[in-house]
């Protein structure tokens, strides 16, 4: 079976059922359409989040801001965090690209539970709408920060209960997606698609799904306890009634640190897909990368209390969690070394997805290394709750997951839409994006090192130069993002028709026409080789 046989058959983008237009999309259980629904909705929320971040930087242009009130500023950083974490980075790669490509990569026609899959998107949207409602209704947008730390979140008059409930619903969506993907990988692999012939993106999704199952419920129950505390005053977190805020921090970070790995693991999977395609050689150390995904998921679930080194933990716990935190660096570094080794002596075809993949590796290394620094207790106590932390996690979350998201978008855009974008315009967008990113977030690292606390509305005049540099960086960053999105939106309508395999990739999605037909494969393929088996390897 080749792409030629499928030529002329309607693609998944064309409606063949009785419903037309938007209704056909909102009721479709096709994993590709669900993936697109996720993609479009989360990119919209991403832009809202970018806009809020842009405003926060504007406020910090002067030491004594008077653009907005301090209360509004508190709401801004809370909402920026909630949107970016819960609506974009956590569901981002698994829900959008995992949905679209996981079944195709393992040679399946759909996920194991297609209707449940669509239902998770509805949960996602309900959560998103509730989160948005919490901003504009009731007593005002939540001002606790995205971490909802008690006891403040118990007593603030703002709309915390609704925002917390929104996060609860979003967690539900995340768990259902995890259930679906694990079952899909266990049950729907094509004949011959053994575990070690699976593309590495599938491995990373598998590891991610397990964290979603094992960690998200802890967040769910913690958020339920916050709501119960606010409504009934059950007293578990409230020191006035004998409760303990430290318990909240434990429970919150038992989820929220593994959540960081929910965010970064699929990103690492994407990079492991892109590098072989553009170096024309199999990934170096396939099994090492696959197992490092599992061990990051495992060890990453055991490091949560490094967020609490200044909260009054026992000395023993501090030592233990510091050690465990440093251990996570090992599997992460294994991945980086294998990626670099893949590049070595490859026949490199320098295309936009590769550019963004390399950007990921560079920025992730900065993010990862600053993370190891904070794993050391003495440094952590120094930089805790400063801009250093903010810079660090933006390097990991945006420089890591965000760049990988863009890389995946550029890599699979022709496959998903059947159109090719202007590569020159992408290169042009990359420059302001990359320069703006580092100007903004590296400056934050420096500011934090100097002592600038996070979440402060006003800053001391001695930090002003740094803040101004960072704000200018944010302008370039936003410019780059807009150029990138503009290029892709233009390509969506005016782009050239893309071929079935524009990059010369060898994983299963490139055997399909662009865009793929509704049921992916006319006939389920039988797999006989590893995922990155390039024909020229045989000649050599």
């Amino acid at each position: 079976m080749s792409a030629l046989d499928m030529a002329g058959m309607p693609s998944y983008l064309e409606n063949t059922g009785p419903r037309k237009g938007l209704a056909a999309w909102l009721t479709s259980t096709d994993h590709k359409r669900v993936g697109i629904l996720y993609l479009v909705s989360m990119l919209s929320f991403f832009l809202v989040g970018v806009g809020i971040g842009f405003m926060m930087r504007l406020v910090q242009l002067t030491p004594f801001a008077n653009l907005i009130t301090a209360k509004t500023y508190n709401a801004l950083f809370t909402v920026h965090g909630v949107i970016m974490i819960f609506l974009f980075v956590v569901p981002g790669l698994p829900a959008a690209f995992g949905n679209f490509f996981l079944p195709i990569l393992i040679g399946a026609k759909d996920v194991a539970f297609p209707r449940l899959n669509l239902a998770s998107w509805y949960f996602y949207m309900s959560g998103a709408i509730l989160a948005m409602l919490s901003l504009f209704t009731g007593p005002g947008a939540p001002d606790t920060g995205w971490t909802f730390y008690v006891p403040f979140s118990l007593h603030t008059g703002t709309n915390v209960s609704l925002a917390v409930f929104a996060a609860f619903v979003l967690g539900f969506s995340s768990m259902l997606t995890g259930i679906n993907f694990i079952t899909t990988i266990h049950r729907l692999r094509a004949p011959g698609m053994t575990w070690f012939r699976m593309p590495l993106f599938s491995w990373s999704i598998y590891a991610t799904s397990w964290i979603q199952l094992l960690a998200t419920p802890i967040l769910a129950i913690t958020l339920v306890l916050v709501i119960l505390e606010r409504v009934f005053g059950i007293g578990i977190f409230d020191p006035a009634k004998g409760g303990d805020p430290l318990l909240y921090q434990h429970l919150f970070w038992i989820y929220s640190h593994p959540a960081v790995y929910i965010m970064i693991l699929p990103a690492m999977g994407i990079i492991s897909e892109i590098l072989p395609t553009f170096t024309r050689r199999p990934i170096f150390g396939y099994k090492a990368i696959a197992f490092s995904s599992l061990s990051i998921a495992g060890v990453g679930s055991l490091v949560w209390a490094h967020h609490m080194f200044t909260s009054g933990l026992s000395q023993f716990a501090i030592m233990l969690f510091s050690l465990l935190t440093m251990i996570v660096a090992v599997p992460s570094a294994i991945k980086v070394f294998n990626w670099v080794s893949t590049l070595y002596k490859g026949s490199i075809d320098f295309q936009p997805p590769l550019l963004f993949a390399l950007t990921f590796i560079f920025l992730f290394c900065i993010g990862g290394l600053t993370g190891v620094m904070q794993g050391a207790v003495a440094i952590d106590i120094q930089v805790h709750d400063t801009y250093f932390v903010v810079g660090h996690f933006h390097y990991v979350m945006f420089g890591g997951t965000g760049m990988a998201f863009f890389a995946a978008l550029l890599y699979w855009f022709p496959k998903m839409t059947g159109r090719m974008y202007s590569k020159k315009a992408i290169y042009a967008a990359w420059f302001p994006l990359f320069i703006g990113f580092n100007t903004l977030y590296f400056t934050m690292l420096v500011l934090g090192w100097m002592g600038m606390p996070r979440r402060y509305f006003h800053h001391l005049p001695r930090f002003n130069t740094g803040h101004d540099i960072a704000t200018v960086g944010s302008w370039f960053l936003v410019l780059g993002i807009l150029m990138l999105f503009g290029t892709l939106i233009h390509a969506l309508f005016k782009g050239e028709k893309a071929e079935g395999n524009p990059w010369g990739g060898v994983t299963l999605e490139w055997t399909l026409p662009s865009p793929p037909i509704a049921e992916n494969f006319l006939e389920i393929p039988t797999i006989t080789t590893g995922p990155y088996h390039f024909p020229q390897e045989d000649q050599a």
Partner: protein
Amino acid sequence: MSEPLLASEDHPVAHPGYATFLKVWAALVVLTGVLVLMSRFGQSSAVWGLLLVTPVKAWLVFYFFMHLKYEGPLLKGVVLITLGTLLIFFALMFSDVAFR
């Protein structure tokens, strides 16, 4: 796709009958009695009951009522991974609570 590769995941063993479940139920009721009895002998004995008898009861329900005995390694593994994770969560949290 129940390809031969995965056939071991499907449950191969025959279903148990009424008698098995009745015996398990009787055991569960007896163990509940033991638990109550142990709680009569003071606090520490009650805690030992909690730590020793309760897991056995839960295991009986998982293993027989929930058919785990008759399932392949995958489902058993799923349960073990979950319980193992929870145990580690407890241990790590008590690395803080117990050493303050």
